[in-house]
């Protein structure tokens, strides 16, 4: 058990080092196959660990290994270890599955049409392994400090992968944007850790949020009693800061701006970022700190409001995007916001809601994380296959592909049905639980999220119809678009199958906030409503986009202002641009730069000028001219002699 768990972590890291260092010495394909093989072993081990855990220790967290790493003070020690509890075991499965699919898929995707692997193939696989390692390390972290380190490593590896095509300026901008935004958020995370650690004196999750027993959290919060800053308790600040860190990684509004641009990376990388790594890190972080959030209603409300707003905002933007990957990106933001909201609505006023179903939102959130990972990976890999076939991201280049790529089309349809929440696909079950949790919190929350669920169905089917139907595809490349090689099709089929059946996993038995099994049953009122709304969304999309017709164009013209605003993502990027360039750069940086230039630089320039002039003036003295030296020497000697003479005369 111990060996297996540690191996799950070590293996991707070894692959990263091996492929990174020795990759160039081997043929590109060999490196890829090695990467896939390494990931396959990791996946098998991860499943083993997870099954072993759920079968034998279903209610206890388990710290497998924990070594002291940094001894700050005798009391405050940062450790490195492996913690297995329900959510980390579940995450091990999710991460390794999606990562394996992406590894396999990339074998086909990262090749040109003659089947030759691209330049940098080895580097690509090496970074994929690093990415997987970072995320695995994050989910098994035993303390918040270790989590922070892996949080940063996830950011780093996403930076490397988004900028994989480093010769493209767009990729460079995108990876810088992703890195800076998430880094800024991580700064708040660090602040939160500091505040939390300052009063509790520990990093360990054990002491901060003992699994399933609120006493530990109560004690941790108790140590911060009476600490206030600007009228808000310190623990509130700490948790809000930690949430900002999570929001940066999870692309919550208004820190979502990096995610759409992150599409510049290779599509399988997008799948990995959106499904299993990176964006779910934030959700996982909040889930990990869940007991603390429960006790601090203020922080919980912040999470809920931000989550609910982001869900709606991203869905609205996704409705009008023309770039397939961008639309999927906003759908990810929306779905991640679903998870956040679900976590946040499961408690109010410092107590869990829902009576005997307490903690339903938590379970639902994790369930949705699990199902979403599967169908979002599926959707992205489908998108990759399409892009690989048509060489474009814009859906007006795609139209009518159903005839040419039937497998991809069906897989994409399954993904859409799953995300729209149509039974019996995976998304239905998880989304239903989320909505139940929302209605428990309040009718407004429930209605709001139901509406967003309807929009989800609409925009997903809009994309689906625009790509695969709308009008007959005119072939204007030299080869017809077709289903891709087996390395790319196989992951689609596997993920589609999982998306079909994942909903039937009795999730509540395994993953709950306190480890106690939660008996879930479908609330047919809520389920009926949400399915109804989803069907309305699908119907609307079918009516508008199934066949080529002028209706969408007319609608677009009728509400052109709204349409443009949504298309431009409600000017969030422009707002950032305005804030950074006009306010920060112009208002703050410019005066500082001016001061720096005039006073600080000026002072040192003057100093340097002075020295320069002085040395220029006296450099003749050291001109290397023997006769000048002799002359000066002679004058000195004469002067000495004269002085001596005068002194003698005086005496």
């Amino acid at each position, binding site marked *: 058990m111990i060996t297996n768990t540690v191996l799950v972590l070590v293996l991707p890291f070894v692959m990263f080092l091996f492929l990174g260092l020795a990759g160039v010495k081997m043929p590109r394909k060999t490196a890829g196959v090695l990467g896939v093989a390494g990931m396959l072993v990791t996946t098998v081990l991860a499943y083993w660990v997870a099954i072993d855990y759920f079968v034998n220790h279903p209610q206890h967290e388990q710290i497998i290994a924990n070594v002291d790493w940094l001894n700050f003070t005798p009391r405050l020690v940062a450790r490195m270890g492996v913690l297995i509890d329900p959510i980390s075991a579940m995450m091990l499965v999710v991460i390794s599955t999606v990562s394996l699919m992406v590894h396999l898929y990339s074998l086909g995707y990262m090749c040109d049409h003659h089947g030759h692997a691209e330049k940098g193939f080895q580097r690509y696989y090496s970074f994929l392994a690093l990415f997987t390692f970072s995320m695995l390390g994050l989910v098994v972290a035993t303390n918040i400090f270790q989590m922070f380190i892996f949080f940063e490593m996830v950011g780093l590896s996403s930076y490397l992968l988004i900028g994989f095509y480093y010769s493209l300026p767009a990729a460079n901008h995108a990876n810088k944007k992703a890195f800076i935004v998430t880094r800024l958020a991580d700064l708040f995370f660090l602040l939160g850790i500091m505040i939390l650690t300052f009063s509790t004196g520990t990093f360990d999750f054990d002491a901060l949020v003992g699994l399933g027993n609120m006493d530990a959290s109560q004690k941790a919060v108790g140590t911060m009693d009476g600490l206030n800053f600007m009228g808000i308790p310190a623990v509130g600040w700490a948790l809000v800061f930690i949430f900002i860190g999570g929001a940066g990684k999870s692309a919550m509004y208004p820190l979502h701006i990096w995610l759409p641009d992150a599409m510049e990376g290779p599509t399988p990388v997008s799948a990995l970022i959106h499904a299993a790594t990176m964006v779910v890190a934030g959700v996982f972080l909040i889930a990990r700190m869940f007991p603390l959030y429960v006790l601090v209603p203020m922080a919980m409300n912040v999470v809920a409001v931000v989550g609910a707003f982001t869900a709606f905002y991203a869905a609205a933007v996704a409705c009008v995007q023309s770039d397939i990957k961008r639309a999927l990106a906003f759908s990810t933001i929306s779905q991640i916001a679903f998870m956040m909201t679900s976590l946040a609505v499961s408690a109010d006023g410092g107590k869990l809601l829902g009576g005997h179903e307490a903690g339903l939102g938590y379970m639902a959130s994790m369930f949705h994380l699990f199902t979403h990972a599967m169908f979002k990976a599926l959707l992205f890999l489908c998108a990759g296959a399409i892009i690989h076939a048509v060489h474009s991201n814009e859906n007006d280049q795609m139209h009518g592909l159903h005839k040419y790529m039937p497998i991809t089309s069906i897989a994409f349809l399954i993904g859409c049905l799953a995300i729209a929440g149509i039974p019996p696909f995976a998304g239905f079950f998880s989304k239903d639980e989320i909505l139940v949790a929302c209605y428990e919190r309040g009718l407004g929350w429930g209605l709001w999220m139901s509406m967003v669920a309807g929009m989800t169905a609409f925009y997903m089917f809009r994309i689906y119809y625009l790509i695969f139907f709308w009008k007959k595809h005119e072939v204007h490349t030299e080869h017809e678009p077709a289903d891709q090689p087996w390395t790319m099709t196989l992951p689609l089929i596997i993920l589609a199958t999982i998306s079909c059946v994942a909903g039937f996993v009795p999730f509540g038995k395994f993953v709950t906030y306190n480890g106690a099994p939660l008996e879930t049953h479908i609330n047919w009122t809520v389920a009926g409503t949400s399915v109804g709304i989803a069907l309305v969304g699908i119907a609307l999309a079918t009516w508008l986009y199934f066949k080529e017709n002028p209706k969408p164009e007319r609608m677009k013209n009728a509400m052109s202002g709204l349409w443009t605003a949504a298309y431009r993502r409600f000017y969030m990027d422009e707002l950032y641009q305005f804030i950074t360039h006009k306010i920060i750069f112009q208002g703050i940086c410019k005066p500082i730069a001016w001061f720096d230039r005039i006073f600080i630089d000026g002072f040192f320039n003057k100093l340097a000028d002075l020295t320069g002039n002085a040395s220029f003036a006296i450099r003749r003295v050291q001109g290397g001219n023997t006769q000048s030296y002799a*002359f000066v020497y*002679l004058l000195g000697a004469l002067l000495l002699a004269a002085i001596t*003479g005068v002194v003698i005369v005086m005496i």
Partner: protein
Amino acid sequence: MYVIIALSIVIFSIMAVTTKKILRAATYLLFALLATAGVYFQMDYQFLGATQIAVYAGGVVVLFVFAILLTHKPGKDAEALTSHKKVQGVLAAVACVALCGFALLSFGRFCLKTLEGGADVPMDTIGTTLLSTGSDGYLLPFEALSVLLLACIIAGVVIARRR
């Protein structure tokens, strides 16, 4: 006799540093050195005078002439020997001479001493003095000088050797 010697010292010295041709400068130096030997003879220092003629006039000047011939291409004499710092040079020389002259005139009551006869130093005295180790013996400087000369020979060979 004194007048001739004094005049030739003064004139040849001045000409040695003002002439425009390097070979002439060496020649005037030779004459100035010979006049110096004359001074030594007048002092009754025959051995010193002979050394002056043999080493200076005979050896050093010949060295100069060789060096000049080695480093000057014939017909390039027109190249100015003197740089533009004449004023500086004159200033320094005059200052130096003035200071020394002032010192002589102020402190040099002994300057009016006249030359007394009978101070001839016989050769054997010089020889025994150079090679004796007593309180007025010069064996150590003599040996040191021998080593120095040997070092000079080697150094001269090493430095001037064509690589």
